[in-house]
């Protein structure tokens, strides 16, 4: 006996709405729980003092600086190399077995667990290159980690620029270089920017690869060679060792707010370009 399709429709609606509600409840319970427990402790002192007593008191200013420094190094290094590689692959080479292999490798490398990058960074940057636990070691490790992502998204963005744009530019007498600067980069910019912002998000959230390359020192870093803690690492240590629940929540809340801002910035950037152009 077939069930009335209207009944199955109703059942399906119930199940689907329930699933959506479950997801929303989980989502909000995590975010709101942490924000509600953490934001009250985000004071001006919290943002400007360095941690003391293993993080039980003081603030997290050194961790904030550490996060920014490590992310900055990673982006500054990875962006030109990533975007440049993407350009080379799409514009200067023909589609061949080699490019297919390169693309597949970039995909695979983008999916490798970050701990493997951490292991590589620890052995290579910290010990072998003798950079020690430092912002440089951490930043370079993160740069290598986000490089495949940037290459992939940039390549995707450049490839989806309609060939017509290039042809029009060439027919007007433009060289490959001029075409690239005046036409391709601007058109592909939203996609490239998305990749970079994805990379920034990953750097801010990363813990496993950072803890063993940038170290976990509490002091304010004074140079690229100083060890530094990032907020994610600081949160991990505070939370897993039960040092200070308050500060842990506050750090987590700050992290969530930061990621929220990054996401909003990304969306604004993309919608601005999409609205403007084609």
């Amino acid at each position, binding site marked *: 006996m077939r069930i009335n399709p209207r009944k199955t429709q109703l059942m399906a609606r119930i199940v689907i709405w329930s699933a959506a509600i479950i997801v929303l409840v*989980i989502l909000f319970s995590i975010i709101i729980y942490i924000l509600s427990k953490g934001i009250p402790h985000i004071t001006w002192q919290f943002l400007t003092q360095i941690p003391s007593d293993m993080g039980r008191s003081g603030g997290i200013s050194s961790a904030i600086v550490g996060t920014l420094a490590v992310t900055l190094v990673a982006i500054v290094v990875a962006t030109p190399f990533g975007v*440049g590689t993407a*350009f080379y692959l799409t514009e200067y080479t023909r589609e061949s077995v080699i490019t297919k292999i390169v693309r597949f490798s970039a995909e695979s490398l983008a999916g490798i667990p970050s701990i493997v990058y951490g*292991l590589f960074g620890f052995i290579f940057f910290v010990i072998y290159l003798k950079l020690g636990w430092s912002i440089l070691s951490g930043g370079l490790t993160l740069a290598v980690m986000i490089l495949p992502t940037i*290459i992939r998204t940039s390549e995707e963005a450049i490839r989806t620029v309609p060939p017509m744009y290039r042809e029009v530019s060439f027919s007007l007498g433009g060289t490959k270089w001029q075409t690239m600067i005046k036409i391709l980069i601007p058109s592909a910019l939203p996609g490239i920017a998305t990749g970079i912002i994805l990379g920034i998000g990953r750097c801010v*959230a990363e813990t496993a690869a950072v803890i063993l390359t940038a170290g976990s020192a509490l002091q304010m870093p004074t140079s690229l060679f100083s060890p530094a803690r990032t907020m994610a690492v600081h*949160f991990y240590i505070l939370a897993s060792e039960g040092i200070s629940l308050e500060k842990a929540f506050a750090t987590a809340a700050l992290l*969530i707010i930061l*990621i929220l801002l990054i996401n909003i910035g990304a969306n604004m950037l993309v919608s601005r370009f999409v609205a403007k152009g084609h």
Partner: protein
Amino acid sequence: MKKFGERIPQGLFFIVALSALSVLALITVFIFIEGVPLIAKVGFFNFVFGMKWAPSLGQYGIFPMIVGTVFVTLGAIILGVPVALCCSIFLAEFAPKKLSNLVRPAIQLLAGIPSVVYGFWGLIFIVPAIRNYLGGPGLSVLAGSIILAIMILPTVISISEVSLLALPPLLKEGAFALGATHWQTIRTVLIPSAKSGILASIILGIGRAVGETMAVIMVLGNAVALPKSILDPARTLTTNIGIEMGYASGEHQQALFATGIVLLVIIMILNAAAQYAVRRK
């Protein structure tokens, strides 16, 4: 003259691309150079299927960790994918525009939250709940699965939703014209048509689950023994590396790189599967 002006940027890009690609190649080569000798020394079957991980005794069997990874990932898929699929259908088909415009960025935010935050949340809520109501120490495969299920939700939801939205409206209209209800349309027309995208999202979710380290270290218990039930503590391939990375040296360190090779191979297989799924459309 023009030709020469073209050569410079081409050369520049070539150097840039070469450096970037060689660094990426360096990592792969590095991992293999460090890891392969150990696999050769211990023996492939002893390494992959060995039951005992005891570096201080020179024993490097990663089977308990493979089982840990498989259990935890499987659990995450079983718990997470159905919910995620329903949610993506909700966003694509049932939600009023205002609601979906609110929910979508919220899910994006979920995707960006550091994994250690999830781990901590799991430590506070999930682990005690398991311990009090189901037994065992609470630090368990189940706890890991639940946390990972939550963590892969954004990935599966957003990509599946995109696949559903990308379908030509003609498909839906045709089904309605034939008298199908909304749900019948979804079940018989839309989901099968978006199959490759949905499959790709699931595979990407699996990839994320396999690669997760920090959240899992916090809730899994990290015992080296083979987990015999979902309430047992366990170790995954990633957490094994994470815990022992700091103090491993010599052979032990090589064993960790060898574990990295296994992870790399798993990811490559997953990637190939994802590309195959997408291409089959």
